[in-house]
């Protein structure tokens, strides 16, 4: 994504999921979620930023969440960048009846925060919320206003 061309639009969900740096971050978050440990599995995740000039992607991790929840409300500010998505894991197994896809609150929060929500579960990757950051790369450095 580092084309050097000043961006005019925020990256789409498909572009984000195709980014190797983001895939690596989701793999690490999944491993850190301890999906194979029933007593300690928990959600992990963070924020995905884009530099508004260079279009470079950066990823920051949030504090670990609980078994089925994660707080991504307060992204650290990154100079020259804006939040273009969040990501988190669903470590509880679909084989035991858990839904791998987004919860109702995953959808609500993604719409409220204004950026796509990428989710990794044992049955693949899922998304919720807008197709790309609401309002493009303008606006607040954190989530769009």
């Amino acid at each position: 994504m580092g084309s050097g061309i000043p961006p005019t639009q925020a990256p789409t969900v498909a572009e984000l999921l195709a980014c190797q740096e983001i895939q690596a971050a989701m793999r690490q978050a999944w491993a850190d979620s301890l999906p194979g440990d029933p007593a300690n599995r928990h959600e992990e995740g963070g924020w995905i930023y884009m530099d508004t000039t260079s279009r470079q992607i950066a990823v920051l991790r949030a504090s670990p969440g609980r078994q089925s929840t994660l707080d991504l409300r307060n992204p650290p500010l990154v100079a020259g960048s804006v939040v273009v998505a969040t990501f988190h894991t669903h470590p509880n197994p679909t084989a035991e009846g858990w839904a791998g896809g987004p919860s109702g609150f995953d959808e609500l929060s993604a719409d409220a925060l204004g950026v796509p929500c990428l989710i990794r579960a044992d049955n693949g990757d899922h998304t919720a919320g807008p197709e790309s950051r609401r309002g493009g790369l303008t606006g607040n450095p954190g989530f769009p206003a």
Partner: protein
Amino acid sequence: MSVVTTPSSATGCPISCDEALAIARKDAETAYRDLSGFRIIIERKVDGWHIDYELSDVYLKGGGPHYVIDATTGMIVSKRYEQ
């Protein structure tokens, strides 16, 4: 954890609100290690008691269990574990 109940016109059903809540909670505690972050919404509908464990803040990621419990037999008709 807080409980929000909605008024029901279907009085006299064999399974009371409290009984339905107990059935749901017993199941929920087998799947979720900690239910303290959720509020519970219970509503009597045509197909039974709908019991939903919801987060308290719309900006949080995650989810809780959701149930439909037969108001006559007390059986869990459907359940969904969200995360």
